[in-house]
């Protein structure tokens, strides 16, 4: 538990002076994400910038330094019967809050409970000029100034080093239960969306290996009454399934085959690609394993109303994120320049041109 922001600031100013680039690293568990890191660059280590700065359970708000491990935060919240509702994946013991926001990672509850980006209320950030800026706040509503806090979600550290995050936390659901049944991929999209359309306490809808899994969570009476009305077997140890999905420990994710993430319209027909699929988020997030050309997958993803990225494996020297249209590319380039005029942070990590 330490505040090393002054040290981080000095390192950035030093890098600026000598024209050095810096790769930002927290717990080091997401090194596989994005494009391959610039090997000539130094490392800005956020892993020691840790500690819960403020936590008021009654306010439903927690503030922690970016390097704080998710495990520590979740343990603290659990003592008060609260949780991170967006179910952040952990790819190792070291996974941090800062990295989770930078990569915009959320788990199976995301369509119902929101994403990490949705829960962020404010941040502190060191920009490329070494300025330690504070945006947003510790309150649920704040429209003063641009939302540069949520802007960081998915920016993969290209705008600066997030040093502190305030976010909304929620009570842990009183109970949860999982329903499972056999279903073909062709039928499952329609099925999951129909269920999501009902005013019932659903917080998970996934499909893998010919089985559809629905999770109900909330007040016991509501969960039990819904389970009686809906079809499917109550799954023993259902929470284990969702935990495996959340942390990508399910066997679907094992092995070295390239892992593609399709983030698409929930009702879109599944892209016509042979190979294993895992459908999550009631159809909005679809995982595919296989060798493929990104350009071809991009057109399939676009037809499904969304985008594709090469999440893990494959060729990481080429682009791994869905391409940006010309005008948005230009805006993001200018934004990058406004935060990091010398291009110090995570060069080429998100896109080759950023």
């Amino acid at each position, binding site marked *: 538990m330490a505040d090393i922001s002054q040290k981080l600031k000095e390192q950035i100013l030093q890098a600026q002076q000598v024209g050095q680039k810096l790769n930002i690293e927290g717990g080091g568990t997401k090194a596989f994400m994005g494009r391959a890191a610039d090997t000539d660059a130094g490392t800005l280590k956020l892993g020691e910038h840790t500690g819960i700065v403020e936590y*008021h359970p*009654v*306010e439903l*708000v927690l503030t922690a330094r970016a390097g704080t491990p998710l495990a520590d935060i979740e343990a603290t919240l659990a003592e008060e*019967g609260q949780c991170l509702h967006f179910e952040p994946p952990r790819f190792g013991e070291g996974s941090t809050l800062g990295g989770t926001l930078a990569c*915009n990672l959320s788990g199976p509850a995301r*369509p119902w409970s*929101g*994403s990490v*980006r*949705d829960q962020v209320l404010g941040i502190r950030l060191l920009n490329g000029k070494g*300025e330690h*800026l504070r*945006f947003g*706040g510790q*309150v*649920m*509503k704040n429209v*003063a*100034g*641009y*939302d*540069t806090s949520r*802007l*960081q*979600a*998915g*920016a993969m550290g290209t705008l600066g080093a997030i040093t502190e995050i305030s976010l909304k936390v929620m*009570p*842990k659901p009183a109970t949860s239960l999982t329903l499972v049944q056999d279903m073909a991929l062709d039928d499952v999209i*329609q099925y999951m*969306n129909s269920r*999501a*359309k*009902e*005013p*019932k306490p659903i917080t998970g809808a996934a499909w893998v290996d010919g089985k559809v899994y629905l999770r109900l969570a909330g*007040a016991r*009476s*509501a969960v*039990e*009454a819904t389970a009686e009305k809906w079809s499917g077997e109550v799954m023993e140890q259902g929470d284990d399934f969702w935990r495996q999905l959340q942390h990508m420990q399910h066997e679907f994710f094992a092995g070295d085959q390239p892992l593609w993430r399709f*983030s*698409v*319209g*929930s*009702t879109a027909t599944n892209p016509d690609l042979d190979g294993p699929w895992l459908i999550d988020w009631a159809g909005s*997030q679809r995982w595919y394993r296989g060798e493929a050309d990104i350009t071809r997958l991009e057109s399939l993803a676009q037809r499904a*109303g*969304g*985008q594709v990225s090469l999440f893990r494996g494959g060729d990481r020297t080429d682009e791994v*994120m869905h391409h940006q*249209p010309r*005008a*948005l590319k230009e*805006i*993001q380039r200018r*934004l990058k320049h*406004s*935060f990091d005029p010398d291009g110090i942070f995570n060069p080429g990590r998100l896109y080759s041109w950023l």
Partner: protein
Amino acid sequence: MNTKPKVSQAELAEKFRAFIDPDFVITDDETMKPYECDGMSMYCEMPMLVVLPETAQQVQRIMRICNEHEVPVVARGAGTGLSAGAMPHKEGVVLSLAKFNRILDIDPLARTARLQPGVRNLAISEEAAQFGLYYGPDPSSQIACTIGGNVAENSGGVHCLKYGLTVHNILSVEMITAEGERVTIGSDALDVCGMDLLALMTGSEGLLGIVTEVKVKLLPKPEVAQVVMAGFDSVQKAGDAVGGIISRGIIPGGLEMMDGHAIIAADDFAQAGYPREAKALLLCEVDGTEEEVHEHIAQAEALFRELGATSVKTSQSEEERALLWKGRKSAFPAVGRISPDYYCMDGTIPRRYLAHVLLEMEKMSEEFGLRVANVFHAGDGNLHPLILFDANVAGEFERTEAFGGRILNLCVEVGGCITGEHGVGVEKIRQMAVQFNDEELQQFHDVKAAFDPAGILNPGKGVPALRFCQEYRSLEHKQHKHNTVDAAHG
């Protein structure tokens, strides 16, 4: 901005009339008059010209012309804003999106609606009702305000603790950039690759682009909703009760508080059956499945009694629920009846400081000689103090503004912020210098420049020019010191 020769009103009108119905390129003062202000009518300015396009292509052409000639553009929806965000620029164009009023598509299975920006907030839920769906954010002005304006302000409403703000309920926007590019930000999916520009756009008060289409998420309408009303003999007890509910793991659909002044005014207006002797009133709405609501309502009733409520009443029918809300929803006009004018503030605070903030506000009320009534989105810490004044009394509005400014400073002092949902606009631009330092404000200016290099979109709003900030801060500081001394002597 001064490098190019200025284009005249006549020249600009002629350029626009080449592709827009001439009746909708307005240049005469009489027809432009209604555009001189938004819902914040104390701030007025006549524009050079008002234009009402009806297609995105027309908006594109307008923007290209304005960008080329560096003419300021102020986008306008229904004009219900409460921070003068849509106040015209005297050398600029008001671009009204009133003609973009169609619901383009509702997809019941995907639970989405594709909308033109001029569609009214309430109209979305009305249209979606046939599918058992509704749109979450419900600002008090929802009968009139538009979805485009909601995006510009990141509007909330009484249900945002549970259902979120506009930023949580939209999937994509189509927008025209300052340079006249037509882009889509977001997609049908829940996220896209790269920086989260959709979040950045939301709440940007018309400073980053002109939204021409919005895709929103729709939610399944809850099976049941019930309201528990609880009266308390102190604000502190009511505040504790809010904390108590949340610590029990109940997230109410809506959780509203009113102080003694607001209770009486609202009850006189709506005959809602409020406990008129109470010093604070809580309205706690629980929604969900029948079983869940039943379970949580029982818990809430018991908890309020345990925490010292002097009266507890639960709605037993939809009519009763509507009546209990009617008082709250009409609190602003109700307060309007007991005073010639009122000024609505919009600070947010961490809830634990509620009693402290209300007490300080009472002291200021005496100091400024102005009454104040409070309604409070207790669930999310958004405070709406209503300062009562008479604009016909010389100097009274200036005193009201000063009082309001002090309230916002107090919100920042306790860790809150100057605006929860009404936006900065012109009205709170001075307080931006209290909430942010120069480096932060400069970063905001740089963000704007990334979208709008010529600075033509809603200039002078949202983020103060740095050269004024030092002056604001020293003024605030002096005033603060002065008042502290006064208090010590008083």
